[in-house]
Structure formats: C-alpha cells, structure tokens
C-alpha cells in the first residue's frame, strides 16, 4: 500500500460551536507540508473513516513564510503551516488553531489585536509628505544590519501565542510590538516619536509584564532577536519613566 500521512485537525464551525476532532489519511507526497495536505483535503473532503466533511477553513496566502497568515498550533507548537514539512513531523500530525486569539472558524483566528497595538505605539516613520524631498538620512551598514532583522517581523503572532504573559488578565502587548518600537526608535527620523512610543509601553499591559520566559524568541519563525529588543526597550522605558517623573 502507498505510504500515507495522518492528520488530526481540530474543527469548529463557528465561535459558539463545540470543537471536534477529525482525522484524515492522505497519500504521501514528496515535499508535502501542512498547507498542501489541507489542499488535498479540500479536493477530496472525506475523513479517515470515510465520512464526507467540509474543506478546512484556515488563513493562508504567500506559502513562503513571509505573509504571516498561516500560523497555527502544529503538534502543540505555534508555527507557520506552510513551512511545516510533513516529513519532519511526528504522526499523527495534530493541527489546532492558535489558542489565545478569538476563533473565527476551524484554524482561522482573529489576530487584529497586533495591528491595533502597532497603531498604539505609532509604529511608523513620521515623514513630512510623499513629495520629493531628496534622499533619506545616511544609515551605515552596521545600523542597517541591526534594524533589518526586526523589519522582517511577519506579524504571525507566534511569539504572543507562546508567551505565558500574553493573556486577558495582563493585557500584555507582546514581543512583536515591542520589537517594532525598538526598530522605529532606532531610525534617524522614526526617533522623533520615541518618547510617545515608550510611554505607550508603560502601565498595564506594557513592557513590564514580560516575565522573561524567552518562549517568544524560540518560536519566532524569522529568528528576530526578540528578547534583546525587549531588554533594550525595557531600559529605554525605564529611563523615560524617570525623566517623566522628575519633569512631571
């Protein structure tokens, strides 16, 4: 018999429905990943026991691990489904939605909280306008090399899912947003809003909620130096808090 792969997928038709598990057995193909497995299921939506079912709902787009869409729990670990090669996974492959974000359906969740956080910390460079104002500020290769890894954050939210402090009771902003604060505070023009960004990280849900579990840096699919960004930014927030205190 042809080699097969077995997937156990957690299904839930809507946010109020009861979750249930479905098992699928698919013909093995070379280079198969969790997304291509779900494409197979869509073309032939039948469970392992022969029951017809519906195609699985999930978010995906680029399938190159750069759009950040297809984050889910695979064998219990938050990661991108497109780069989860079936050959490297223990079977049956357990696939579940991220657990800390509102569920939409099956494996799709609502991660808009990150985009709201980015708004809160003003994660942008405040340019004067889009008209031609000549070349940008000089940036030396060493500075570019420090900024570049942080600019590769794909907003997948794996770091937030894995963080023990990211939950409703702390309201913690999470590592991804803090790394963006670090990125923009380093930029020669982005610096202009440094003060406001640091202030946004003070108080409830702010940077002090970080418990240094270091799970974030472990799960980050882009190897962003998240813990370093948090400790560097933490120091800056502290300095700012002192300044504000004595000025206030």
């Amino acid at each position, binding site marked *: 018999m042809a080699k097969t792969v077995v997937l156990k997928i957690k299904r839930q038709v809507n946010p109020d429905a009861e979750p249930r598990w479905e098992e699928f057995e698919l013909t093995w193909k070379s280079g*198969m990943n969790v997304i291509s497995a779900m494409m197979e299921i869509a073309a032939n939506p039948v469970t392992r026991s022969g029951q017809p079912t*519906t195609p699985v709902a999930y978010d995906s787009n680029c399938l*190159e691990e750069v759009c950040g869409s297809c984050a889910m729990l695979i064998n219990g670990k938050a990661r991108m489904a497109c780069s989860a090669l079936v050959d490297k996974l223990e079977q049956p492959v357990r696939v579940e939605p991220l657990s800390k974000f509102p569920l939409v359906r099956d494996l799709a969740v609502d991660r808009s909280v990150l*985009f709201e956080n980015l*708004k809160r910390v003003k994660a942008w460079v405040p340019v004067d306008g*889009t008209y*031609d104002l000549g070349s940008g500020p000089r940036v030396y*290769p060493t500075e*570019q090399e420090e900024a570049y890894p942080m600019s*590769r954050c794909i907003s997948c939210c794996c770091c937030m899912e894995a963080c023990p402090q990211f939950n409703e009771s702390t309201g913690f902003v999470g590592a991804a947003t803090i790394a963006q604060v670090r990125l923009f505070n380093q930029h020669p023009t982005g610096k202009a809003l440094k003060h406001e960004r640091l202030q946004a990280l003070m108080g409830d849900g702010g940077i002090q909620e970080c418990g240094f579990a270091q799970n974030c840096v472990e799960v980050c699919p882009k190897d962003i130096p998240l813990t370093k960004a948090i400790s560097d930014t933490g120091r800056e927030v502290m300095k700012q808090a002192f300044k504000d205190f004595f000025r206030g």
Partner: protein
Amino acid sequence: MRVFNYPLTKLLNYQILRKGQMAAPPNIIVVGGGLAGLAAVIKIAEAGGHVDLFSIVPVKRSHSVCAQGGINAAKNLKGEGDTTWQHFDDSIYGGDFLANQTPVKAMCEAAPAIIDLLDRMGVTFNRTPEGLLDFRRFGGTLYHRTAFAGATTGQQLLYALDEQVRRYESEGRVTKYEHWEFLSAVIDNTQTGRGICAMDLRTMEVRTFPADAVILATGGIGAIFGKSTNSVVCTGSAQSALYQQGCCYANGEFIQVHPTSIPGEDKLRLMSESARGEGGRVWVPKNKGDKREWKSIPAAERWYFLEEWYPKYGNLVPRDVATRAIHKVVYEYELGIDGQPMVYLDLTHIDRETLDRKLEGILEIYEKFVGDDPHVVPMKIFPGMHYTMGGLWIDFNQATNIKGIYAAGECEYNYHGANRLGANSLLSCIYGGFVAGPQAMQYAKNNAKSTAAVSSAAFDSERKRQEDINIKLINSSGTENPFRIWRELGELMTKNVTVLRYNKNLKDTDAKLVELLERFSHINLGDKSMWANTSFAFTRQLYNMLQLSRVIAQGAAMRDESRGAHYKPDFPERDDKNWLKTTKAKFAADADEPRFEFEPVDISLLPPRPRRYDMAK
C-alpha cells in the same frame, strides 16, 4: 507651545474647510492593499480625501511581500553613467516594444524620487560603507540599478507603506475593510462607476459601498495556472468580474514564466533573480544521463549554457530568454538533472558572508522548504508561472474605459509590454498607485454629479444580482468539486499557455475551458454554511478565473508571432508589421465570451529595433 499649536492648526483647518464649503472630502474606494493599493491610499489621504480600503487579507499580508530582489531606479550611484533614459530604454527593449512608451518613460523618471521617499519612510535598504543606498545588478540591464533590502525587498516596501497607511487610519482618513472581497463594481445607467459590491468573508454578507471613484489594485492572476509563484489570493477574480461588466482587458496573452522557481506540492516558490544578480550560475551536467553527484562533476563537464549562448548578459538575460533556454536544455537536449525537469542554480562559489548579507531571506526559504543548504549545495530550480504583463486596459492616467474606475499595479497592463524586467514590478506598482490616487481625487472633485446624488436603484440591483449568484451556488446540487475543476484548469493552462504555444493546443484549451465552465454549472458545494465559508468564496473566484482564462488562451491563439514572453515555435519571429499592437478583449455578455480589438502602441520615443541578448544593445 507645542501644547497649543496643535489644536489651533486643527481648528484653523476646520474653519478653512467650512469656509470652502467642502462639506465632505471625496470618498475613494481602493480595492487591494498591496503596494499599488497602499500607494494610492497614501496619495489620496495626503491630499485630504477619505479612503475605504478593501482587502481579502489584512493588507500587511498582501502578495507584494513576496517580491524579493529589489526595485529599479537609475540613481547612478556606482559611477556607471546610468540615466533614467537608459532605464527607459532597457524597459522598452526588455518588453519587446509592446509597452506604451510615454507612461514607461514617466515611470523611469519618477523612480529615483520614489526610492528616496521609501528610504525616508524607513525601508531598511542595504547600504554602502559610506551609508548610501547600495545597488545590485538585475536581468536585462548592464547597470547596477536595483536597490534592495536583503532579499525581502517587497516585504520591506509593503511594510513601509502599510505603516504610513496605519498612520492615516489612526487619523480617521482611512477605513479598512479587511476580510472583505470585491464582487463587482456598481455602475449606473450612465456607465459610470459609483462604488462597489463586496462580501464579508466571515458573515458572508453582501453589501454595496458608494464612492466618488474606485481604484482597483488587485494584483496578479497566478491561480489560473494552478501552481505559480503567486500568493493564494492572486486569482484575478476582481479583474475578471470587472471585465465581465464591460472593462477592457489588454494583452492578456502575455504571461511571464520566471526561470528560477522551486517546484513544490502547493506552490512554486520563487528563487529571486538576485541570486543570479549576485553571481549565481546556471548549469547542467554536459553528459546526458550523468548520475554523478554535482560535486563529482568537474568544471569541464558542466555546461553553463546561458553564459555560452549569451556571453554579454550571461546568467542575467531577461526572464523569457532564460526560461526558454532552460526549457530547451531540459526538453530538447534532455539534460535536466537526473532526467528530471530541473537545472542547477549554483551559489556555492560565493563566500558565505556575502550570501548572508545580500541573499539571506531567499536562501533561508530554499533551505526551509527543500532541506538543502544553498551555501554548500547548488539549488535545483525550474521555470514557474510568475506574472501577468496583461491586465485591465487603462489610459495614461490609470483610468479604465468605465468612468470613475481606475486600476494600478499588476492588475493593469501598462508598464511591461511583452515581458517585464526584474525589479520593475515594485516600481510600477508604486508609481501606478501614485498616479491613480491623485487622478481619482481629481476626477472625484470635478465630477458634475456626485455619487451622493445617484439613485439607490443601481446599488440595489447590483446587490441583488450578487446575492442571486450566491443563492444559485449554494443551491446547486451537481457533483463537481470546485477544487478539482481548479486543478484541471491549472494543468491545462500551464501545459498549453505558458512557455511554448501552438495554435492547435490553444484552440483545444479554449474548447476545454468551455467544458469546464459547463461543469461549473453542476458544482456541488460540500460546505453550504454561511459563516467564514472559504470554499464558497473560492468557488466564486473560480468562475471568474475560467472566464479570464479564455481571454488569455484566445489572445495567445490569435497573436501569430513571437514577442517577449509570448513564444510560438511556428511563428518564431517578432512581426511588427502585423502585431505591433495592443490586444483588447471585451466581454460579449450575449455570447458569454470575449471579443477582440486592437489598438496601436505608443512608439513615439524609441523606434522598435530587434531585441537580442547575445550581444550588447
């Protein structure tokens, strides 16, 4: 001081607005949040307009993130005497003289300032030791003209624009409708676009949205070819819907197949041209059936066929040329690695430090998805469908033939002729958005009859039309699975309508497409629920893909010549006498198929000359 200044200016602005009797700023709908869409949004918001921004995915996840290698601009920072005119000449020549020259020239002239702007927005471009922008070489030019941010330039550019849009969003100038899909335009009885009809991809609710102008920036059509380098959302569904409503679709037959992609089960992952730009070499073993591991094959027994055939450009010939060369080596000479349709793309002679600094992102993708480390093992690659040069017909102001509807980015046809040069796509997206935004604003301000004054009948009937389509789909009780029809479509189009095109196959393809459309009417949606039903949304897209496929296949069948990416072995030469013209497809609703007309190409600046890459221009 600061405390008082801000509200005062705000108050002042408010007074000026009131005095100017500008009751409400123009409201523009932008569909699509990739580079072109976001570029348009920024220009509109900056000029005081309000934008409703629609996107299937959160805009930060748009397909532009996949662009790797860079963005072209003749900044001439390498002492090579590069000029915007040279950039223009390379682009027209690379596009085999099919692109309209006036807009291409304007784009090349705007490019250096666009790079400066992106730099000011904080894009982490690679730098020279002096802290200036670094530039690399790319296909189809002899100059270092491509600015880059590692090998994730598209991602960095999209983020920069996304951040500026978020800034406007927080000021209330932009309202985002993410997880909404464009279904159609609302067109009134004067044939004027008045807004759009869209579907909420969670509640599946269908709604109409009025606007003073609409800009479509919905990207590529890769899904039509099944597996491609494109993202999942790049189905061409929106363009096709508009085409079926009366917008012309131009040069649909020009499809770029990228020479170097990584074959995969779910998609063809791009291996950027920058791998060759930084010195990557393409080769195969010289001897047919050579089973040796690559390392044991001595240099003398490796065939660097691009370098041999094109000594001047070498591995950096344009994409269509490289793609055909690889096809020839694999299928005619049967020299693919291990007899498989694959050739080596070799970076192992370049030192690790340089590779990591300039190509890290893409080498990481290869390693992640294939499992080999390209620093030490040559990559195995093969051509894959990558880009559509064709798209919605627009005039030089990005306006479609339906009043009030504009288009920008890959979904329109204006900038790349018969073949796009590498690193010109990011540029054309941003430039197109920068033109479309202000043009749409201008139109909205000058339009005699505002959308507010349009009767609701046009909106009601469009919503009803779309709801009826939904009801019909949900109730369809046939036996066809949409995903299986899609697979057949992809295999059909890839086989017959990509690298080598024969008239007989093209005609058979169109007949087969008619069959697939017939089968579509017997579709059975396994999932009939009305909450976040992704297969339902996909099935709607599939219908539009099928309709647009016919434009591509029929356009290719008609054009009896070879030009850029369009290659017919039976008509191997470019034929300027008969075919130096733009193909325009119009949907004939009564016959349910395209009708074609042609229009002359603007060649006002550069007289067409033969395109050859085996020697300098």
